[in-house]
């Protein structure tokens, strides 16, 4: 986190594309293709957190899952510590998999209801055949105390826990294999406000203690602001803006980012940004608009926006934006 540490790139995603083919209506029609992720590139440095923010259907979750190989990527490369994951033999992949984990949004569906909490955390150790049974049990005990659960809770089933506690079990399971990199897929959005704080505190503490690297996916800008070093804003499968945390919130450039910021129901009246209200809904990712994807809802849209898709370019130092225009005053 601090500048003194060597900035070492842990994960590099280059032009990642994930397209899903849907069932066609009949044999004679084309297969509809959802362009869930449509050319996304970013790096994450060791020990840092990259925030991926956007509304539902923008492809942020798919990006996270494609990195872990949970959905098949159509194009692009993902490199972990300089190794291209696409070219790794399956055996090596199993080892790499231990070092990359994921925490899910819904702690209610992320835990198998027919396994006890202890078994759930033990499972990764069994799958990868780590240690003997005594060592494994010790590791599980250690993990339980690490995430703030009690040892005697290991025998309970998931439905006997509250939402916050379930999310702690999920975190313990993700940490079991001592990963370096964790995809946090909306880890707090299904939780009550008071519990959100507990989990965010836990995640920050763990990151510090274990030197973890996070890809933090959320639709909630306040959460993103609280935990991320760098932030990428996604819209309809592409990144429209990418900058450091300070830069993005001080100086949002892309019209979509600004609209998103002003749409957040702030809770404090002190910030009354001039509101940019977006018209309409997010277009269907099957028939995305030509040119700039955001043009259908953008008040600055001109002719060129429907003809050419803007590329993500560095408009000022460390601040990337995909827009044909300079729409901000500064």
């Amino acid at each position, binding site marked *: 986190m601090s500048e003194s540490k060597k900035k070492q790139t842990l994960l590099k995603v280059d032009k990642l594309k994930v397209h899903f083919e849907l069932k066609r209506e009949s044999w004679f029609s084309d297969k509809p293709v959802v362009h869930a992720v449509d050319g996304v590139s970013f790096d994450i440095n060791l020990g840092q957190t990259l925030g991926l923010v956007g509304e539902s259907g923008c492809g942020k979750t798919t990006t996270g899952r494609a990195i872990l190989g949970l959905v098949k990527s159509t194009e692009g490369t993902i490199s972990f510590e300089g190794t291209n994951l696409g070219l790794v033999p399956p055996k090596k992949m199993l080892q790499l998999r231990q070092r990359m984990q994921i925490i899910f949004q819904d702690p209610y569906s992320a835990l198998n209801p027919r396994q006890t909490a202890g078994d759930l955390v033990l499972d990764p150790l069994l799958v990868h055949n780590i240690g003997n049974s005594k060592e494994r049990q010790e590791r599980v005990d250690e993990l339980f105390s690490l995430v703030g659960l009690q040892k005697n809770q290991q025998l309970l089933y998931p439905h006997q826990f509250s939402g916050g506690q379930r999310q702690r079990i999920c975190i313990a399971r993700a940490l079991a294999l001592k990963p370096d990199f964790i995809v946090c897929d909306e880890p707090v959005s299904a939780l009550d406000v008071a519990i*959100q704080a507990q989990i965010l*505190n836990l995640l920050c503490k763990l990151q510090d203690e274990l030197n973890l690297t996070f890809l933090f996916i959320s*639709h909630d800008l306040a959460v993103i602001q609280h935990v991320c070093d760098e932030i990428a804003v996604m819209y309809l499968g592409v990144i429209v803006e990418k900058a450091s945390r300070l830069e993005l919130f001080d100086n949002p450039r892309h019209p979509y980012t600004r609209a998103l910021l002003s*749409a*957040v129901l702030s809770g404090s009246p002190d910030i009354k940004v001039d509101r940019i209200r*977006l018209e309409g809904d997010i277009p269907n990712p099957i028939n995305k608009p030509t040119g700039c994807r955001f043009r259908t809802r953008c008040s600055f849209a001109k002719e060129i926006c429907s003809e050419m898709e803007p590329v993500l370019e560095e408009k000022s130092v460390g601040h990337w934006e995909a827009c044909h225009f300079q729409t901000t005053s500064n």
Partner: protein
Amino acid sequence: MDDSLETKEDAVLRVMNLSVDFDVKGNNVSILSKVNFGLGLGETLGIVGESGCGKSMTALALLRMVPSPPGKISDGEVLLNNLDLMTLSQKEIKKIRGKEISMIFQEPMTSLNPVFTVGNQLVETILEHKDLSRADALKEAIELLRLVQIPAPEQRIKEYPHQLSGGMRQRIMIAMALVCEPKVLIADEPTTALDVTVQAQIFDLLKEIQAKTQMSIILITHDFGAITEMADRVIVMYAGYKVEEGTLDEIRNSPLHPYTQGLLRSMLVIKPDSSGFKMPLPEIPGSVPDLLNRQPGCPFGPRCSQATVKCRSMPPNFNLGFKRSVKCWLVDNGRVE
């Protein structure tokens, strides 16, 4: 009693001692305990609380729509212009629903019947409450869709719910609720299932309509941001109790109940100066109490850092002024009882 001050005002809706019990495996569980509040003309009242605090049950109880069995309204009055809704016959209460008091719900995905067109469902509502021909009702339906700013309403009216986006569906729900220009609109988490940019649109729309029609709104939400956006007055609920009531400013700037304080502190907001990066957030420890095994005394006691021996008995509502009350022993230092 505690809400004697309420009667002074010309409230559209007054709720007194509203209580709902559920029968869970033969045990009587109190889901809602003696909730009181008033709702003024053109006012927006926000009801906020964590999941399971009884806020949605309040909404259903107002229109006597508590699922029964297992639930039942065990006590209380709901006065709509001095008419007690709790004493009406089934037939009479149906005339109130959708006409005097309307509701919109959290899940616009499932709140519309999937096998009928949007127009069909709108027209049927109009015909239920108004003496119109089908053609006139259809015209009115299109007008309503225009009112809730749906583009090309003549087209949309022929579509099925699954063909519309979440935001659109919620607009349809609002249109349906507005058919009879109701005095009160109950919005139960109206934007929770929607994206932020669409959320903002819906709130703008509600405010616009409220300005036009002087309708009163009860906004039920877990999101304090939504409350700030919409509400004039706020009720904070916890474990079936109203624990605090006050104006938006009062609640936000000087919350008195430890639960409200904790809720506001632990809430994340966007900070203009980006401060507090990765700083530990204040937490409320533990989780909401088990309603099946209620302990005597203040329900927030186990999670409260300031709990004293006195908190083993239930605190009453302390009235601190006009429509300002707190249910906590901490404020009991010589004030009104």
